[in-house]
């Protein structure tokens, strides 16, 4: 009964000052510089002379309440009772005395979390929901990330890369994971399989037709029922029709593959922000450990680590050495699929004699 229901308090986004460490409140907008005393630790110094050490650590991201309480217990005992989460789901504790840093690190590591992820490290992989909770995923997210972080953990704990490396994963071509220096994204390779018995009752057909980026879907009568059909020559297998019309199943145990993209960089530092570019596809979607995808990521990281100059992100490095060299050093095949044919594709063609020999 509506009259018995509680009305929500529409307070919106909460005030964060109540949740900030007192040193952060006191020095808000008054920080002078920072140093990086060791991997996983930052030291910020304010104009007032106040010092604040941050210890960053990686977790499994999907936290059970036991793990969450383990994190808060560390915060209570070793870090003044404050916790911040980074946008890549790392945990950050802060302390105002240098002597508290080492005991805090020991407590974090003792509880099984991983200190690192600062500066020129491989940061925690940013990931999405996957099979655990999404309604349209082509793969899992937590499992892919766990598998890769197991292999990249030393690069998270140390700062041996030329610059920071952001890796992302996405479980469909909507790409919720975002842009990354390296992105591992689902790439479907076959058009949707349509259950024509269900389309009329489940899908709003004009909406589905409008959703297709290449106008490959049209209304049709199939077996006497109103349904939809796909022009498979035009279909780019993006899966955009699947969310509004689940009977157009795009996921497939074999034909849903992974593709790997590199060079996405959100920062304005040096060059303008860049989008990631395709480098590898047809990578098997292979649970529970996805070894083929991890091997390619590690290969790219190895060449970047050896070949890039200090402060070059992956896009900066490739800009300097050129794409032919990138494919040469990584051993990845260059195919007709690497040549773009989408809107604006001409801008990606080489209209010059700038060629490295």
């Amino acid at each position: 009964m509506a009259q018995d229901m509680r009305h929500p308090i529409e307070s919106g986004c909460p005030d964060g000052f109540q949740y900030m460490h007192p040193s952060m409140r006191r020095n808000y907008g008054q920080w002078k510089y920072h140093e990086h005393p060791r991997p996983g630790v930052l030291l910020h110094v304010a104009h007032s002379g106040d010092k604040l050490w941050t210890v960053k650590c990686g977790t499994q991201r999907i936290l059970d309440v036991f793990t969450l309480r383990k994190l808060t217990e560390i915060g209570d005992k070793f870090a003044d009772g404050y916790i911040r989460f980074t946008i890549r789901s790392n945990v950050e504790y802060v302390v105002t005395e240098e002597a508290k840093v080492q005991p805090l690190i020991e407590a974090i590591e003792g509880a099984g979390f991983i200190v690192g992820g600062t500066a020129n490290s491989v940061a925690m992989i940013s990931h999405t929901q996957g099979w655990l909770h999404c309604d349209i995923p082509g793969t899992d997210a937590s499992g892919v990330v766990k598998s890769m972080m197991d292999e990249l953990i030393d690069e998270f704990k140390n700062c041996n890369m030329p610059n920071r490396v952001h890796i992302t994963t996405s479980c469909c071509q909507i790409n919720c994971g975002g842009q990354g220096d390296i992105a591992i994204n689902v790439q479907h390779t076959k058009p949707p399989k349509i259950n024509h018995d269900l389309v009329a009752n489940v899908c709003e057909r004009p909406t589905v037709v409008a959703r297709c980026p290449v106008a490959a879907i049209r209304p049709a009568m199939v077996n006497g029922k109103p349904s939809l059909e796909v022009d498979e020559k035009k279909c780019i297998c993006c899966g955009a029709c699947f969310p509004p019309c689940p009977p157009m199943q795009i996921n497939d145990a074999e034909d849903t593959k992974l593709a790997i993209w590199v060079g996405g960089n959100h920062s304005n530092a040096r060059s303008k922000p860049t989008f990631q570019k395709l480098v590898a596809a047809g990578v098997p979607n292979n649970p529970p450990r996805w070894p083929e995808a991890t091997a390619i990521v590690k290969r790219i990281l190895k060449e970047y680590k050896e070949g890039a100059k200090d402060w070059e992100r992956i896009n900066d490095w490739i800009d300097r050495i050129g794409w032919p060299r990138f494919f040469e050093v990584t051993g990845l095949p260059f195919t007709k699929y690497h040549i773009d044919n989408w809107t604006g594709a001409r801008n990606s063609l080489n209209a010059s004699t700038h060629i490295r020999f």
Partner: protein
Amino acid sequence: MDKSKIHPTPMLDVLEDGPWPSFVSGFKRMRDEHPDARINETINSLLGQLEHSYETRKGYWKGGTVSVFGYGGGIIPRFSEVAKAFPESKEFHTLRVQPAPGNYYTTDMLNQLADSWEKWGSGMVTFHGQTGNIMFIGTTTDNTQHFFDEINEYGWELGGAGPCVRTAMSCVGAARCEQSCANEHGIQRHLVNTFTDDVHRPALPYKFKFKISGCPNDCQNSIERSDFSVIGTWRDEMKVDQAEVKAFIDAKGRDYVIDNVTTRCPTNCMTLNDDNTLDVDNGNCVRCMHCLNVMNKALSPGDDKGVTILIGGKRTLKIGDLMGTVVVPFMKLDTAEDYEKLVDLASEIIDFFAENALEHERTGEMIERIGLVNFLEGVGVEVDPNMVSSPRQSSYVRMDGWDEEAEKWFERQSEKAAG
């Protein structure tokens, strides 16, 4: 829980090995050790379904319609398609809850949220999802309401889901970063809390996201991931502490500064002098942040701070990835009137978007379809050369309004000169 009812998870078990913390071990603790049988059974069932996904390489959740009383969005409904085999997790909805800008918490507050969540939900939570919400993953339709009622009483609100204004995000910001040129907290809360109604009651063509970064390093990915990106910057001279420049050179050497600072400047606006001082041609500095990142102690943003606003960033579907475009090259954000102007601009843009975008079309896609000039005229913003990388290359355009447009430019210039 009765051991015979435990679903075997041979593939997921593999993910308990290795040095990185395992989410599977976390799920199993909830299944085996949590005192509440409801949680043991729910998580057992969930693990069974996830294992089934691993075996068959398919997802088995479908959406639906679930919300709390008074709202239309904020919940991600999930109903299992394999509920017969895994009935205890047949309803497994996520609540999206808005965090404070910059994701700050006290341990007490996190514990309180954990208490509420294990009372009403699965006890599994993520800080945070890609839109920026706390994701309380897994509860039933009834308990969705109970959990929301409980946490709403102590200050927490649902985020956006569906075609609405979404939960906003900010970087760590002025609370702990010397590069911050903005009050990210104030900006985020002024913006998103003006549109609370549009957050909770989805009625826009599609989603609309605000993201705020304190400086052009854009740690929040706002250009690439938000319809309305606010980025702190400054317009006076960057600060150079020449003593610290010398100290940096003493520690690292001149070559390091040449190789990693001056020659990396995208506009070649820095000169390293023979006496180890550094000159900056501030009129050509594009505030890229590289030199400030490298020589953090010696170089700092100036004092005349404000923000740049870019509109229209988004990810792939439908027309491909788009970055935001500069719509406001610089605006001050000091006074209440300044903030009012910012909120007014956001209102104009959301109104224009609501009236002119097609169904399921993002702001950037709408601008791509109608052209930036039509968008600017629609929201009442004058053109500015900072909005383009270069002027038009194509001569295919009708320009018989040239004289009036040129006159407008000169008028604006003289108004600006008059102050």
